[in-house]
């Protein structure tokens, strides 16, 4: 027993020693270091022409675009371009580039470099390269003048502000080596305020960026000099890290944890509506949902407020399709609300009353919001005599089922998120509601020739007159309300937790989850 007692004593002593040395080690990190805590790895790809995932968090620190969209003012703001104008009915766009901007390797950011970058992105045609679809040719008539000639009128100032696929990068960075391979080896060639310092694939501290001394914006005033991306898959661990000051910012929390951290000293919390909508897409081509009255009955039986309450602040309602902060957002649009009287009336008009229809609903496995929405819809439609069979599937399986060539094998309702790749609601309409010969993303199988014509016209209108474009988007949303091929169940909320000392943080849904660290004051 004596030996055991000795061991116990040794254990206590060693723990005591650890107390002296390990406590608050992470908190001791330099105050000029901004540590971004995310739940999954950041870098999947390094090529700014093709990246289309979580890389955006780091890429937006290392790279810049010609312009940036401000979701608060709904205005496009200067970045590498200081001014721009459209002519020729929106088919020619001229950008004047900033003098004095350089890439991290020292080469100047000029019109020729910008043209080379965008030309390469278009040529590779991967990721979000489709955003440059309207571009016929690019010219660099002078060192700092960049001219885009378009095939058809399009809002190129919005496109050049895109979160993906619009980066200006140095195509000469690899020298004689293959640029794609050079990027794939973990290099960057941007002009942003931060440059790559260290990358550790698969590690919890995945990327470290350091200040780019020659950044055109300069480093006078108070700025973070280092940005670190840390991967923490578990929300409870992330909460502990931010509470102890070991990370500066947590990208995502569960609503329960978020609410528990609200008002805690040493922390600040923000909640901002994203541009990510969760849709229930109704099968308009087969079965009961092909009947518009039946669809309206279902849409009127959903308790949207109850869903938001169940999600504890993780979402908000959007009238129509277009969320707040985007051109086309219209708070006066009609929207479906829980109204069982109306639901019964629509059900009777559909001819399905008393026939006990059975609907198959699919959602993406592992998505908490979709699961809650599915179960609520199941219970809410039961009193109308509608049975909902809920199937949780991996997204690829869910999509494959929705694209089945056999109509009866497709689902009746599918839950799916959609968000735009640049500050323009066009993506929702062209992908989800324009007629498709065989289904791709239009999983409501909706076809409306009037709406199709409006979708084909709206970008050209927007390119020359944003107010008219916005009005047309309102009209299109009213059409969707009347036909009910889908309902917007919710728009997700970004719930962020930051340490208290950080000033200047604004959540910009045009760049999902990106923190423009240079704009922060430590």
């Amino acid at each position, binding site marked *: 027993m004596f030996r*055991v007692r000795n061991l116990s004593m040794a254990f206590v002593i060693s*723990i005591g020693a*650890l*107390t002296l*040395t*390990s*406590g*608050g*080690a*992470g908190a*001791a*990190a*330099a105050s000029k*270091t901004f*540590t971004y805590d995310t739940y*999954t*790895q950041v870098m*999947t*790809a390094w090529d700014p022409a093709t990246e*289309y*995932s979580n890389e955006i968090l780091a890429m937006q620190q290392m790279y810049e675009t010609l312009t940036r969209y401000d979701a608060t003012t709904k205005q496009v703001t200067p970045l590498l371009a200081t001014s721009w104008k459209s002519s020729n009915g929106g088919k020619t766009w001229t950008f004047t580039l900033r003098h004095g901007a350089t890439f991290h390797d020292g080469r100047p950011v000029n019109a020729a470099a910008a043209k080379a970058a965008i030309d390469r992105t278009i040529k590779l*045609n*991967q*990721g*979000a390269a489709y955003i440059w679809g309207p571009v016929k040719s690019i010219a660099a008539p002078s060192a700092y003048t960049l001219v885009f000639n378009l095939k058809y009128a399009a809002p190129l100032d919005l496109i050049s502000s895109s979160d993906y696929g619009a980066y200006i990068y140095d195509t000469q960075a690899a020298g004689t080596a293959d640029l794609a391979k050079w990027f794939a080896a973990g290099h960057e060639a941007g002009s942003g305020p931060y440059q790559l310092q*260290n990358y*550790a*694939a*698969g*590690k*919890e*501290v995945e990327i*470290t960026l350091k200040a780019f001394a020659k950044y055109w914006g300069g480093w006078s005033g108070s700025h973070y000099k280092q940005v*670190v991306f*840390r*991967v*923490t*898959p*578990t929300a*409870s*661990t992330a909460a*502990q*890290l931010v*509470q*102890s000051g*070991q990370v500066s910012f947590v990208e995502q929390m569960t609503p329960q944890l978020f609410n528990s951290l609200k008002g805690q000293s040493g922390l600040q919390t923000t909640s901002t509506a994203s541009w990510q909508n969760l849709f229930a897409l109704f099968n308009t081509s087969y079965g009961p949902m092909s009947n518009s009255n039946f669809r309206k009955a279902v849409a009127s039986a959903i308790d949207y407020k109850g869903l938001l309450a169940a999600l504890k602040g993780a979402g908000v309602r959007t009238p129509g399709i277009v969320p707040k902060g985007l051109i086309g957002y219209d708070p006066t649009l009609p929207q479906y609300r829980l109204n069982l009287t109306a639901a019964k009336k629509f059900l009777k008009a559909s001819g399905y009353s008393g026939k006990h229809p059975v609907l198959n609903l699919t959602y993406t496995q*592992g998505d908490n919001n979709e699961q809650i929405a599915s179960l609520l819809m199941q219970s809410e439609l039961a009193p109308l005599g509608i049975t909902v069979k809920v199937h949780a*599937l*991996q*997204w*690829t*399986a869910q*999509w*494959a*089922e929705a694209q089945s060539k056999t109509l009866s094998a497709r689902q009746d309702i599918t839950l799916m998120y959609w968000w735009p*790749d640049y500050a323009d609601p066009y*993506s929702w309409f062209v*992908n989800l509601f324009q007629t498709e010969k065989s289904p*791709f*993303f239009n999983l409501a199988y909706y076809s409306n020739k009037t709406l199709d014509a409006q979708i084909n016209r709206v970008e050209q209108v927007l390119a020359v007159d944003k107010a008219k474009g916005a009005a047309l988007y309102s009209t299109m949303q009213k059409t969707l309300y009347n036909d009910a091929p889908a309902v917007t169940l919710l728009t997700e909320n970004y719930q962020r937790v930051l340490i208290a000392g950080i000033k200047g943080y604004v959540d910009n849904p045009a760049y999902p989850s990106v923190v423009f660290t240079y704009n922060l004051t430590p």
Partner: protein
Amino acid sequence: MIRFVLRRTVLSLVVIAGVMVITFVITHVIPGDPAVNWAGPHASLAQIRQARISLGLNRPLWSQIGHYFWGIATGDWGTAIRTHRPVLNDLFGVVPASFELVGAALIIAAIVGVPLGVLSARWKGKAPDQLVRLFAVLGVSMPAFWLALIVQLIFAQHLHWLPTAGEYDPSFAYSHPVPSITGMPVVDGVLTGHWALAWSSFTHLILPAVVVASYPLGVVTRLVRAKVLETSEETHSQMMRSLGFSERAVLGRFALRLAWSPVVQVLALVLAYSLVNTFLVEAVFDWPGLGNYAAQSISALDVPAIAGVTLFVAMVYVVLNLLVDLGQAFFDPRVRLA
């Protein structure tokens, strides 16, 4: 001995080939198209078609399986869909962290479990025995993720004795690249004389290792107790007692020696089992190991990565079993290799 090794090696290769075929078939009958994941969320039809060609998914199944076997044999385990990196590179990146965590856990299990087992046997039916048995049952039955959250909350959050999560203090990565020889920071810190890193890594290892150790610790304790009790009743133990050896010597010197063989067997199996089954502990403690990698790959339906992890773990099982058999034959003259 050589015949035995050759025969077991051939059998092991057959087992691994079987695992490869089953893995390949299962991953190819799962509904869904890996090219969709590869191409990204809003990819066009043309981009998905291109991804299918790049991944070789447009080829007939027999060609794909042939290519898969040839790739495994030549070190090309495919490209992970989630990370866009070669699977083998990904595995080399995460396996050392898992070996470090599970290795530390097994050392704890052996160092603590064996004496506790002997103690329990020595005081059979008495208070120490009851306490140790309760401790062992708790270790085996307590869900690891729950224990992880509890110890993290107590020792990191409230007492601030140990770090919350991670492999080492992130500030090491802020200033300069962390030296990597084995991929295990504690070992690398010692090998390079980077004592601050070694100490930081060691303190970060304690909580996850203790949690991972809880299951094998319970098993080892119960196993040692049972084996020591069984042996202590046998005639040779009684003879030792009659020759005047103390009870401590009978149990510790003679009975315990016979318990080592099953303990080593169990530890070897637990090592292979724990490599991927610690994913919840790894998730709680931000441990960049194989379990975390496997869990994320499964969530993303990353077929090449899932197949790579399965194959790797199968190989570890087979090799460890072979080594245990050989080790037993070498150390225990009663074991004959047939």
